[in-house]
């Protein structure tokens, strides 16, 4: 089974469960069903769960793909420190949130889904995973190589000036070959 990160799956499930709870709550409130107070609670609980679960955690191994626009949520969730870092807290929190949803038909599904997500979070917590924020990394420029800092102090060695000057008599060797035709045609 390799290295499965349960927390990642639990995060997707909890987000989906929050949306299901929210939808069920909206239907319950809009239809003014009996026990619509539970539906109103489900709406609030669904929104809270969605906000908590939206920022993805950084993976222990491999590249993490952040959800679009999750930076501000990451900052908010990070502010709670160990409460949100620890997955035991999350597991019990989700278990507690889902219970009142079971009292009304419209929110039963959200309750069960959130319960499953809470179980997976418990499994993740037992394996020792925890939530890490994905923060944008500052670009560290590669340090300039040492040799560039010291330009050469001396000119390159050249033969003496007499040898460098081309003899004026020898026109053949002094002629320069043009790469392109310079005649007018």
């Amino acid at each position, binding site marked *: 089974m390799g290295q*499965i*990160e349960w927390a990642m799956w639990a995060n*997707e*499930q909890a987000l989906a469960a929050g949306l299901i709870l929210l939808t069920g709550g909206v239907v*319950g409130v809009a239809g003014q069903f009996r026990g619509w107070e539970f539906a109103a609670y489900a709406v609030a609980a669904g929104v809270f769960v969605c906000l908590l679960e939206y920022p993805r955690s950084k993976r222990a191994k491999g590249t993490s793909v952040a959800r679009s626009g999750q930076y501000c949520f990451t900052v908010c969730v990070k502010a709670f420190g160990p409460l949100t870092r620890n997955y035991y807290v999350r597991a019990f929190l989700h278990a507690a949130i889902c219970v009142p949803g079971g009292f009304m038909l419209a929110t039963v*599904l959200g309750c069960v889904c959130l319960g499953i997500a809470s179980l997976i979070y418990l499994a993740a917590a037992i394996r020792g995973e925890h939530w890490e924020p994905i923060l944008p990394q500052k670009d560290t420029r590669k340090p300039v190589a040492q040799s560039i800092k010291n330009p050469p102090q001396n000119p390159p060695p050249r033969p003496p000036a007499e040898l460098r000057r081309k003899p004026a008599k020898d026109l053949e060797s002094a002629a320069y070959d043009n790469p392109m035709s310079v005649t007018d045609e």
Partner: protein
Amino acid sequence: MSRQAEMSLRVKCGGMKSGNGLRADRSGVTGDGADTGRSAGRHTEGGRAAGRTALLALGRTEALLESSGSCGAPEGTMVVSVRSWVANEGGKHLVLMLWLGGNTWLFMNTFLLYSTGQQYHYLYKMLGLGLCISRASASVLNLNCSLVLLPMCRSLLTFVRGTHAVSSRKTRRLLDKSKTFHVACGVAICVFSVVHVSAHLVNVVNFSVSYSDDFPALNLARYRGEDPKMIILIPGITGVLLVLILFLMFTSSSYCIRVSNYEIFWYTHNLFIIFYIILMVHMVGGALKYQTNIEAHPPGCLRANQSSTEQQGEDLEQREDEEGRCREDAHFQPHYPQTWLWVSGPLCLYCVERFYRYIRSSDPVTIVTVVRHPCDVIELRMLKKNFKARPGQYIVLNCPGVSSFENHPFTLTTIECVFTCFIVTNCLLFNSSQCPTENKETFGIHLRVVGDWTGGFKHTHSLGLLLYFCPRCIFRLYVDGPFGSPSEEVFNYDVSLCVAGGIGVTPFACVLHALLDGWTGFRLQRLYFVWVCRELQSFYWFAELLCALHHKLWQENRPDYFNLKLYISQTDGLQSMSEEKYRPLSSRLLVGRPKWKLLLDEIGKSNKHKRVGVFCCGPKGISRTLHRLCNSARSSGTTFEFNKESFC
């Protein structure tokens, strides 16, 4: 104008030595025609100088635009052309429109049936809109649950792809998008499940609140105001189970989970069989009933009876007529479950396909050779009875020694046909016709050691070599496939461009092998091959193959058939291939990322008004840029058709 500017810019730098501005100007425009050059020569000296500076400036801006266009793609440089877009995206979007149209028609049809149908009149009065919405979404769900299985019958699709007589190239291109269609149907199932469940919640409450005293048979509740949770029967419990399974399947199929933990996705998705079994019993119980005796009891006649008794002494004839029409009480009957009609066909097809694949892959393969290549790549050559594959196809490997349940796809890089004759000495005694021959295909894959499974594979194999006395115990390998992929179409275009990124060269390696065996038999007239790697060492995986193909084509006097370009994206360090035998590669090696727009422009100019097949297997960045470029306008009239490998 822009080309003139570029050429004059280049010539200006080169022509500094000759020092004559008139020449530079003239030679800059000879590419387009001598007339413009002659007319430019008549200008005054001042005008020429000004013109040159202007051209220089234009050339610089043009160069800037081109270089930024290749990586950042500002909107101004790539205009989507209708013709290119239709050639690339037209088929897909047509299928999408048909599917959406089918769903919409089904939804509206069922909605109208339940809201205006005579047999549902009383039910509609009790439940209202919730009835129509729930039944309409149920029919859409039936359609999508049956369609969602069809794109996953991979062996069937491979067979359809292989039969050229059956399908045209356009249809085969549509098969590339089978996974996308599966995802679209899946998303539709989720969305309409939400609608269906919400509508039924409202129905359940209405069953309780609008308990009908006139027609007791129609009710689901036992008394008025019964708690909705108690009204749940078989459809309710099966519905909850279905939504739970759908929830598990949906949450584990996001891109992130598939990329990081494929096993979670695979195991939860295989719960589909339970989903379908429960789906087929979902309607048992008959919560919704329709009226069977419409002629004898036209809907609404009870009310007419009651109102007519109130009106005393008016229209006696009318009263008699109405009483006559309403002869008997309304009879109601629940619907028979219809889902099995929709779903059983595709489900049987898919189960047969899975069974066939299981049987086919139960033969273990024999490993013939293992070669270690630089940059952590292992080449594996295997042998299997009755294995037939085409270039570009892929297989799925399962190695119980590493992990019993993991299956990983790998593209085939070599396919060779080997005829072996068993027991030659016995054949000499008997007739040669009795000599048993076996048609065996050796096939090879290149796998890159990147994750847990490939790492374990490498480790297991080294152990297998050491424990020579029992290598077969540890190292059994099962192969499922081969399955079709878009790269099979390389041979069916006149001109093809193959772009590979790193290990993504594997589908094209098989194509190159096939060309090496015999390039004359295909429709393909020209192949452009672009391979972008991070390190120089990666090119050694297929250096011999590339050189061999290059030499062969030059020997047979077709040097323009195979156009190779190699790029190293890491620009630090001195990089060149020093071996003499790899001369064709080292002279075509370029440092830095390729400029795709310039590349496509160049190909377009050499192949005007042709259809070029672009095949990309590599990182998302490259394929996205190429896709956008293929959709954009082209002055040379060439159409670029984009085909992408889906799992690279």
